């Protein structure tokens, strides 16, 4: 049994989601190899080589791989797929983009967004936005899987695998990278943050999100938003937590002015502790919150900032 994990990274650092995929891979038993596809991504491969239980790291570099182009990733993964029983990648927008291509070429059905590995051929995955959990058994020869990073522990360091350089596939003429607009922020990434504070339609406008940013900076938290706040144009789409946005599971999730539509709950209900601040005491968010505060957020949030200051933040 050997399992290939495709690393998630930004060409500089190994993304934590990779560690979750390695934990999922460990449940298969057998060797774990990691493929780092990128550009000038040596540091990522070196970090992957230190992961616990990893016995080999392959590094392939090219411009299209650096931009995570699906067509390039497909040919690269297919070129090494031969000997593996399972191929795993985090269920990020990168993994979701190229993994189904790999599966189709191998003539196997992809198993998307798994939340548990029951055995080497049986997995649990959410359907209907997490309103039901489906256990499936795959009859395919190779399992091609994307892993929901928030539901697996992050594998630690402790390994010392060799890094082997492999050749990148020839560039595909029919697709090319044009540009990228990534949100710049000194705060932690939504998916990786230990604390997340999110605002909803109740925030009223984009400027008011600065109240949440102040608290986020005190706590080292990431700022998120509900779909309603994104659709209203308060904040960019990559802030969105929910069924159609990001799925997060931090230690502490603070929902401010968020009513708690099913859509949103699907993206945060696995958080360890949930706090809801909302002036409507009937809001559905309170039914999942560990601590609910029925209050006007425009009073409560500045007060929270002050109280945190008193508490030493």
């Amino acid at each position, binding site marked *: 049994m050997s399992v290939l994990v495709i690393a998630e990274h930004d060409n500089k650092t190994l993304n934590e989601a990779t560690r979750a995929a390695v934990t999922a891979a460990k449940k298969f038993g057998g060797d774990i190899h990691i493929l780092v596809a990128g550009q000038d991504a040596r540091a990522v491969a070196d970090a992957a080589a230190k992961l616990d239980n990893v016995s080999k790291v392959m590094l392939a570099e090219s411009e299209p791989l650096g931009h995570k182009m699906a067509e390039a990733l497909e040919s690269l993964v297919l070129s090494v797929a031969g000997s593996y029983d399972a191929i795993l990648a985090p269920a990020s927008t990168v993994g979701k983009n190229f993994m189904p291509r790999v599966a189709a070429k191998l003539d196997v059905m992809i198993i998307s967004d798994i939340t548990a590995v029951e055995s080497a051929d049986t997995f649990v995955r959410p359907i209907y936005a997490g309103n039901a959990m489906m256990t499936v058994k795959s009859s395919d020869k190779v399992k091609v899987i994307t892993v929901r990073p928030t539901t697996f522990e992050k594998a630690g360091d402790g390994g010392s695998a060799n890094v082997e350089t492999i050749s990148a596939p020839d560039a595909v003429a029919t697709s090319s990278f044009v540009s990228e607009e990534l949100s710049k922020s000194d705060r932690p990434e939504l998916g990786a943050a230990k604390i997340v504070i999110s605002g909803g339609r109740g925030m009223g406008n984009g400027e008011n999100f600065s109240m949440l940013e102040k608290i986020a900076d005190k706590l080292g938290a990431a700022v998120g938003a509900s779909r309603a706040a994104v659709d209203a144009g308060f904040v960019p*789409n990559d802030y969105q937590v929910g069924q159609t946005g990001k799925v997060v599971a931090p230690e502490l999730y603070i929902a401010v002015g968020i009513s708690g539509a099913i859509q949103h709950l699907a993206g945060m209900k696995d958080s360890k502790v949930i706090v809801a601040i909302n002036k409507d005491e009937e809001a559905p968010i309170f039914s999942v919150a560990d601590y609910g*505060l029925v209050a006007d957020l425009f009073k409560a949030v500045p007060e929270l900032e002050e109280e945190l200051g008193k508490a030493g933040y």
Partner: protein
Amino acid sequence: MKILVPVKRVVDYNVKVRVKPDQTGVDLANVKMSMNPFCEIAVEEAIRMKEKGLAEEIVVISIGPAGAQETIRTALAMGADRGIHVTTDAAVEPLAVAKILEKVVGEEKPDIVLLGKQAIDDDTNATGQMLAALLGWPQGTFASKVEKADGSLKVTREVDGGLQTVAIALPAIVTTDLRLNEPRYASLPNIMKAKRKPIDAKTPEDYGVDLSPRLEVLKVAEPPKRQGGVKVESVSELVSKLKNEAGVL
């Protein structure tokens, strides 16, 4: 230019689904069905391309039970030109859907296949990518903006951390994200007109595709329930509880 838009009939997004007591699936009896919201966005985008004079014909295809015909009619009422209904009562996995679509693409020769990024029932997010791989076509997935250039498309994609723009040569696959557009409602005259638009009746056998599922569903269960907690009276009580009781501060 010709656009093929595959659409799926799913449980309406406003319905809260219930797991069957015997854990064999979710209860679909007497539940409102609608076009998958991401597919609706795909239909709308195709119509907008036609309205801008970029496309001449929009063909809508759905693979599913008799009721899927309604979903095709909805797309025709929005403005698509004709439909193909591949009738089957079986649950068809995205891999088999992609294989049928590959055959349909061979017959119809569209320049673009425009699909929703995922269906809100199985949440797989794979059909477009799988079809692209089978055809050897480039893809622009999770699109929030699609612009036509000479012989290619410029697709802005919603990715973790922001937006990415790629250029893909035609023929190509595009899958839609939520903010690509806001789908229109069909007007009554257009609903009437759609009744006369042709729908080709097909079966999976016509395409010679093996539909046997690769994933056997062992169980469909309720997710673990989260209990609501307590209400706090003040912000200071909240901070103190987070610190001393929950231990997260």
